[in-house]
């Protein structure tokens, strides 16, 4: 082993931590099928081989479904029922048997029929049909893998305590449902960026992750020893003994640092010059609430509600949403909980009829979709109004570009309250309504918005994306996604000033706030409320306690006037390092 040199792979750091473990390659793609013909006398045996494979695939899916039902709930696991029904479809199987009868192997016949079916669904003018292509692809892969005797890549096959590092191209919703923290210690993907779904999920689960590795799945074999460094964004395949002991040392140092940070969790978020900040936690998934509530955070600055709709088989009911929101609100026991209404496009909804769009980030999504689908939106608003009786709830609207969107949303909110009142259902009608400031349009009309809302929350990822015209999901553009670009800093500065003029709270709830240099810049720009991933709360608190607002303000003023993102970053980094060396 020592004779072979290790293979370093560089990706994007997505979730911090160092893990040494065995790679588990999850190749969830349609395998190559060799074309072979069989003699007539082999046909009966080939038909039986097909039947056995279909039975085995169904058994496998039943197991996956039961497991998903326990971990994710009945509604989410229903998607596997659909896949089981497809495998048991006699018409589909009949077409495969017909081809086997003509002398094709079972895998060739099944592959041909599934390719035809997937194309038929994918080309349909009807979105309800196009949405099923993912399920058909899952079935295609699962049955072919059985027929070809390929290893079962399903993550659920790993024993508890396997400490595996999952290597995959990308995490699909049905794979995400099956992630088991008891056997998976870290995640690495070819696709993705720091802000993509897999990265956010990894951080919320506390799993170290590296994304954007481009071709890791072609360079690693299952069982390879791997060092994954989610802090640096690197993967070291088949490391040497020296590299292993280095990783061990760093891993121990990180554990020590975490223990020290845990002590900070209870301390107050006060800067070195005595300015008190409000530090809140972002909550993406229900299972994060516990971590968030004990992280030392003063409430939830951003509760995303997309988990309620993405990757599911049907829309959540009002009662189901009410339960979800109430759980978070109760866990925070009177501390503020800011809940953002659905921030997805129609193509992510488990409801048919919506087209896929060539340019979804500039498309029909978020508040636009909600206002055009008032029944869907009002179901969420009613659930929020009902849950609000359990604590301090605030509603936040995403992707607002104009004040009339706020007016329409408020009209629907009031209508929802009247409907609940008419039904005699307990609710709170006077919930503060705020907006996300994440487009240049919202920043430039912030004064008009301020007259109609209770608070602003700056979504840094989208503000950077829309200001710089850089797709945050595009790994090739990762180096051009520069949150410290002077244009972005100036827009934030302007928003903070308008908020102050109108007496509104201005917070920042993007991932940006969890990096020390970003937190330093934001505090310098006058932001006094930050919301970060629960696991980042102690580290940000430590940064806050080490800096002076006056120094940060002076540094960020110079950064705003810097000519380039690199110059702005250099100014801020120098000032921050100076601060931290003086206030360790």
């Amino acid at each position, binding site marked *: 082993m020592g004779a072979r040199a290790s293979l370093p792979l560089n990706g994007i750091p997505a979730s911090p931590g160092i893990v040494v473990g065995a790679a588990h390659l999850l190749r969830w793609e349609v395998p190559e099928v060799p074309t072979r013909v069989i003699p007539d006398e082999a046909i009966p045996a080939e038909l039986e081989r097909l039947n056995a494979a279909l039975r085995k695939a169904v058994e496998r899916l039943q197991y996956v479904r039961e497991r998903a039902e326990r971990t994710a709930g009945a509604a989410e696991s229903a*998607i596997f029922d659909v896949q*089981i*029904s497809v495998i048991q479809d006699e*018409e589909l199987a009949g077409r495969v048997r017909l081809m086997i009868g003509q002398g094709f192997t079972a895998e060739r016949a099944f592959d041909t029929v599934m390719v035809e079916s997937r194309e038929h669904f994918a080309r*349909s003018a009807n979105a*309800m*049909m196009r949405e099923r292509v993912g399920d058909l692809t899952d079935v295609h892969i699962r049955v072919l893998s059985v027929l070809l005797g390929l290893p079962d890549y399903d993550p659920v096959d790993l024993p508890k305590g396997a400490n595996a590092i999952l290597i995959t191209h990308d995490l699909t919703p049905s794979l995400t449902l099956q992630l088991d923290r008891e056997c998976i210690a870290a995640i690495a993907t070819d696709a993705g960026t720091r802000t993509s779904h897999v990265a956010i999920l990894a951080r919320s689960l506390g799993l170290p992750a590296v994304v954007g590795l481009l071709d890791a799945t072609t360079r690693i074999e299952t069982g390879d020893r791997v060092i994954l460094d989610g802090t640096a964004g690197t993967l070291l395949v088949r490391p040497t003994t020296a590299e292993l002991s280095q990783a061990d040392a760093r891993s121990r140092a990180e554990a020590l640092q975490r223990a020290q940070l845990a002590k900070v969790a209870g301390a107050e978020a006060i800067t070195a010059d005595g300015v008190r900040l409000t530090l809140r936690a972002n909550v993406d998934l229900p299972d994060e609430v516990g971590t968030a509530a004990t992280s030392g955070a003063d409430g939830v600055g951003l509760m995303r509600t997309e988990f309620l709709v993405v990757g599911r088989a*049907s829309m959540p009911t009002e009662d189901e949403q009410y339960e979800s929101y109430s759980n978070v609100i109760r866990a925070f026991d009177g501390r503020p909980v800011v809940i953002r209404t659905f921030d997805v496009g129609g193509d992510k909804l488990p409801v*048919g009829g919506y087209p896929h769009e060539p340019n979804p980030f500039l498309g029909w999504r978020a508040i636009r979709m909600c206002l055009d689908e008032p029944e869907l939106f009002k179901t969420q608003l009613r659930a929020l109004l009902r849950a609000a009786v359990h604590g301090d709830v605030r509603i936040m609207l995403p992707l607002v570009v104009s004040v009339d969107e706020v007016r329409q949303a408020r009209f629907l909110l009031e209508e929802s309250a009247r409907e609940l009142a008419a039904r005699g259902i307990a609710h709170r009608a006077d919930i503060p309504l705020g907006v996300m400031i994440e487009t240049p349009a919202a920043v430039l009309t912030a004064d008009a918005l301020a007259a109609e809302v209770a608070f602003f929350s700056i979504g840094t990822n989208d503000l950077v994306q829309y200001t710089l015209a850089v797709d945050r999901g595009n790994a090739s553009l990762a180096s051009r996604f520069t949150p410290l670009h002077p244009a972005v800093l100036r827009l934030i500065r302007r928003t903070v000033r308008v908020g102050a003029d109108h007496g509104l709270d201005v917070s920042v709830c993007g991932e940006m706030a969890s990096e020390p240099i970003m937190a330093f810049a934001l505090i310098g720009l006058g932001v006094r409320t930050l919301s970060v991933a629960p696991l980042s709360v102690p580290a940000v608190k430590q940064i806050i306690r080490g800096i002076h607002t006056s120094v940060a303000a002076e540094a960020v003023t110079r950064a705003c006037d810097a000519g380039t993102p690199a110059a702005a970053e250099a100014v801020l980094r120098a000032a921050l390092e100076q601060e931290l060396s003086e206030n360790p």
Partner: protein
Amino acid sequence: MVERLVTVRNSHGIHARPAAQIVKTTAKFTSHITITRDDLEVNAKSIMGVMMLAAECGAEIVLRADGVDETEALDALAAVIAAGFGEQ
């Protein structure tokens, strides 16, 4: 043979999960069962066929059953559709 015209009531229409419920229901009967929407007729025991209907809320569909248990089959199928597949 028996037939009946029904309207899809649940707000999301016959998407994936309702389609699975339909084939689970029809599988219990020996009769030949079909669903027709406009000029598309599909086997109600085939989920691929039922998904191809892409019947949204308000769509009118014709249920047909032919066989020894045709009446029971049609009643059972009409009942799951009328119940909105347990959705809203």
